[in-house]
């Protein structure tokens, strides 16, 4: 018989509660754990909903613990179940679906709800809060259907919601009661700088407006304000605050003020019942940010595991806005009164602002805008109530101007408590980071990220992690902090390429052995990179290593998330024929292609082909591969041009097809796109291509470094040429120079900025010998390329091993 363990019930499957359970598990707490959650999802990272809205993360990405985690830790999880009462007399908790579960200890972590303004019309369709996945889904759906949105509330959440909706293409107005945004965290100066920045990013503002009614029939169509003015809007997000979710506690007879009242050990008024997170009120304060809930959870976990712990004495809250390109920070006091001494610096050109408040020479608060590199040290100084000294002043204010100069780091992490949360997103303590350095020998931020998760989400804590690294490693920091191309080496791309040439290294294995790789066979980052560098250096002799290729390139087709593949036949210059179209249709029908899609580069995507059918599809298509998967020339997009268009001055279709044929199949550092236009109307959108070519009456204009992808960039004007031959020579030289100097996976948009446009122009335009040599080198490399599909179809054993499933 095993010993009966105490029963611990957690009510609320959110970050605060599950964070506490994780700590309890780490401390080896001997409990039988049951968790109840009202939402149907496992535990997710609520503060990252802004990223889901922004589109940079999916809901799956923000799940913190999947169902397997609960199983692995023997935790009984009931999702979609709401606890309605804790019965102290019988020591049972009671749920809405009639369950009764006995307990020895209970943690209430029911969080909070959006506060919905009690104005007429607030229950109409199209009015949501911004609190959970359902709200987020509603906002994503609204952006598909409607054009205008109003966000009521100019606080942290409201601004994040507004920016998210702007990114989704809506016309968004933020309605705020006061004249200053984020007035609970920022002073007037920072607030107006913030407003100006957000206006630049497309957010509109209606300041000093009190909403008195939401208008419309069933669905909202506008807002009416107390001054009689109105704002038309198809969708309204209420982000005016949160309301601790205390119903359960109230119904169970637990003392509730604004939140559930707890003492310094998170105990409520009912014996054996505890409370953490946003539903909790501690010393009169309810917290709505993430760091305090981890701090509370840590104290509670220790208390429940019988470990010694300091009492929880409240948190210093610091604010960071999760909007890309808008850096705002505040901690402690920020509005100055007569008793404060104020140190401030504002730079209107750099758009930065820094303010530090002292009371009796003690640092009690700070506000930063535009440059938040000092946020970690300032938060620390405020929290510890540090006295201002010349040394600290020099450190945080630099020579007195904004931005701080080269401040000496490390002072504050030294005195940081082990238990202090460094990464608020993932609840990583200073101790966890120090342990990762001392016990596992990690020396870089990337390694710390991989091991502990710190810096993995919003990245705001990266400066502190760096400071801790520096502090723990001391003098060895500089040396070890040098970043290689991945965690396997400290060598940079240029060093690796130089060593390959100097030592005549021929295979990735040789490179890794000779250059002392930490992981003998590298990883998924360096193996493809080194394989590329070898092919670039030895175009005629390097034997391409299939095992070092990312799946898409190894299989010459794009893998989809269900393991099926996408095939894209080549259509040079975006031109096809009725005969080819018929063949594509026949093959698609025969192999049950799920979707035929026109790609962004004017080609046909055959989506959803079974892995074992891929070679047959290629064989029956009998067309070259479109390389939609490759780090090489993807497509040359064209307009109709002089062949048919009344405005066309140059034959863009002919030139596009010629260029696509000439450069196809050659490996490049990253994917590469070209466009050719017949006239300056630019219908093929050459301004967002790696090379954009625009025909004019007397020749061609060449643009380079454009990108329409993750980091959009308009191409730089590179040169003008008169003849087709000159055009080809310039293209050859640009592509080869990029091949020889680009970092693996570096797009030309980044490459142009790193190398400098002028430098590239010097190398290629002002030095004819150089240009001709580059063009000759790419022609030599191009002479070596072969059609991988023909090769694969003639190599039965490789094809079988790669594509066919064995059966037993």
């Amino acid at each position, binding site marked *: 018989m095993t010993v009966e363990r105490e029963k611990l019930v957690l009510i609320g499957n959110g970050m605060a509660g599950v964070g506490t359970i994780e700590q309890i598990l780490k401390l080896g707490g001997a409990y039988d754990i049951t968790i109840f959650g009202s939402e149907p999802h496992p535990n997710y990272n609520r503060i990252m909903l802004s990223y889901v809205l922004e589109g940079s993360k999916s809901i799956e990405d923000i799940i913190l613990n999947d169902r397997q985690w609960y199983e692995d830790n023997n935790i009984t999880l009931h999702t979609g179940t709401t606890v309605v009462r804790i019965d102290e007399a019988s020591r049972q908790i009671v749920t809405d679906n009639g369950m009764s579960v006995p307990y020895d200890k209970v943690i209430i972590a029911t969080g909070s709800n959006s506060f919905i303004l009690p104005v007429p019309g607030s229950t109409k369709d199209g009015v949501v809060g911004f609190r959970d996945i359902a709200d987020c889904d509603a906002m994503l759906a609204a952006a598909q259907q409607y054009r205008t949105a109003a966000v009521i509330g100019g606080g942290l959440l409201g601004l994040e919601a507004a920016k998210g909706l702007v990114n989704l293409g809506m016309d968004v107005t933020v309605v705020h009661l006061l004249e200053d945004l984020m007035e609970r965290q920022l002073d007037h100066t920072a607030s107006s700088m913030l407003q100006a920045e957000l206006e630049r990013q497309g957010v509109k503002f209606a300041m000093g407006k009190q909403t008195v009614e939401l208008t419309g029939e069933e669905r909202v169509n506008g807002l009416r304000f107390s001054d009689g003015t109105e704002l038309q809007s198809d969708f309204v997000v209420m982000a005016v605050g949160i309301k601790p979710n205390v119903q359960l506690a109230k119904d169970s007879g637990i003392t509730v003020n604004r939140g559930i009242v707890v003492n310094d050990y998170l105990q409520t008024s009912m014996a054996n019942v505890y409370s953490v997170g946003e539903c909790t009120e501690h010393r009169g304060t309810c917290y709505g940010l993430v760091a305090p809930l981890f701090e509370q959870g840590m104290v509670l976990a220790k208390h429940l595991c019988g470990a010694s712990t300091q009492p929880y004495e409240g948190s210093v809250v610091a604010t960071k806005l999760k909007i890309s390109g808008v850096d705002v920070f505040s901690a402690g006091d920020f509005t100055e009164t007569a008793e404060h001494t104020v140190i401030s610096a504002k730079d209107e050109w750099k758009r930065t602002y820094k303010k530090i408040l002292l009371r009796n020479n003690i640092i009690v608060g700070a506000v930063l805008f535009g440059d938040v590199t000092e946020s970690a040290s300032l938060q620390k100084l405020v929290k510890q109530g540090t006295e201002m000294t010349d040394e600290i002043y020099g450190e945080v204010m630099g020579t007195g101007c904004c931005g701080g100069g080269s401040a000496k780091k490390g002072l504050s992490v030294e005195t940081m408590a082990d238990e202090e949360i460094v990464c608020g997103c993932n609840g990583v303590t200073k101790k966890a980071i120090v342990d990762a350095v001392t016990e596992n020998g990690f020396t870089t931020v990337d390694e710390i990220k991989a091991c502990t998760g710190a810096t993995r989400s919003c990245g705001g804590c990266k400066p502190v992690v760096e400071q801790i690294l520096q502090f723990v490693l001391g003098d060895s920091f500089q040396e070890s902090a040098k970043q290689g191309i991945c965690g396997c080496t400290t060598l940079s791309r240029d060093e690796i390429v130089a060593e390959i040439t100097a030592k005549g290294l021929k295979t990735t294995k040789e490179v890794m052995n000779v250059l002392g790789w930490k992981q003998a066979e590298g990883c998924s980052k360096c193996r493809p990179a080194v394989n590329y560098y070898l092919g670039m250096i030895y175009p005629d002799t390097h034997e391409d290593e299939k*095992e070092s290729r990312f799946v898409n390139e190894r299989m010459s087709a794009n893998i989809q998330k269900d393991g099926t593949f996408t095939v894209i036949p080549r259509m040079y210059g975006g031109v096809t024929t009725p005969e080819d179209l018929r063949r594509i249709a026949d093959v698609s029908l025969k192999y049950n292609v799920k979707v035929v899609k026109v790609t962004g580069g004017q080609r046909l995507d055959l989506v959803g082909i079974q892995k074992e059918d891929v070679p047959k599809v290629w064989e029956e298509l009998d067309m070259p591969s479109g390389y939609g998967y490759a780090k090489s020339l993807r497509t040359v997009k064209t307009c109709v041009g002089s062949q048919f268009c009344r405005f066309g001055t140059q034959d863009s279709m002919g030139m596009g097809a010629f260029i696509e044929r000439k450069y196809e199949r050659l490996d490049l550092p990253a994917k590469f796109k070209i466009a050719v236009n017949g006239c300056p109307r630019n219908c093929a959108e050459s301004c967002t291509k790696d090379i954009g070519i625009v025909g004019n009456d007397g020749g061609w204009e060449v643009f380079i470094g454009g990108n329409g992808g993750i980091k959009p960039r308009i191409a730089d004007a590179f040169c003008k040429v008169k003849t087709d031959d000159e055009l080809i020579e310039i293209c050859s030289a640009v592509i080869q120079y990029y091949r020889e100097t680009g970092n693996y996976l570096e797009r030309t948009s980044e490459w142009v900025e790193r190398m400098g446009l002028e430098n590239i122009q010097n190398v290629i335009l002002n030095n004819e010998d150089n240009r001709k040599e580059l063009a000759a080198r790419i022609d030599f490399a191009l002479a070596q390329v072969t059609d991988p599909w023909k090769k694969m179809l003639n190599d039965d054993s490789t094809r079988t091993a790669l594509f066919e499933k064995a059966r037993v």
Partner: protein
Amino acid sequence: MDSAKQEYAVGPVQSFLPQIGRVVTAGNLELAIFRTSDGAFYAVENSSPHPKGGPLAEGIVSGHYLYDPLYDWKIDLRSGEVQAPDHGTVATFPVSLDGDIVKVSLQQAVFQS
């Protein structure tokens, strides 16, 4: 005999390219079999422990680690353990060599659908 295990031949050694996975279906189970550079063989279920799932056979193999092809999770082929900071486990199956033939040991139950 619910736990009866049996060895099934999945093909000769040469039909597995070094460091490149191969899919083998066994009844209603799909396996990904890997031949590492030291000549060892490993078999795992061809299904990523990532919440979105997906295949594993097409990943990059380094030593006895696999980088999954869709999400780049690092998985120890010996234990099936996903490496930090991600977590999860993929089912592993014993593989043996009988002369030139690769054999994988499976529960008979796999074949009773």
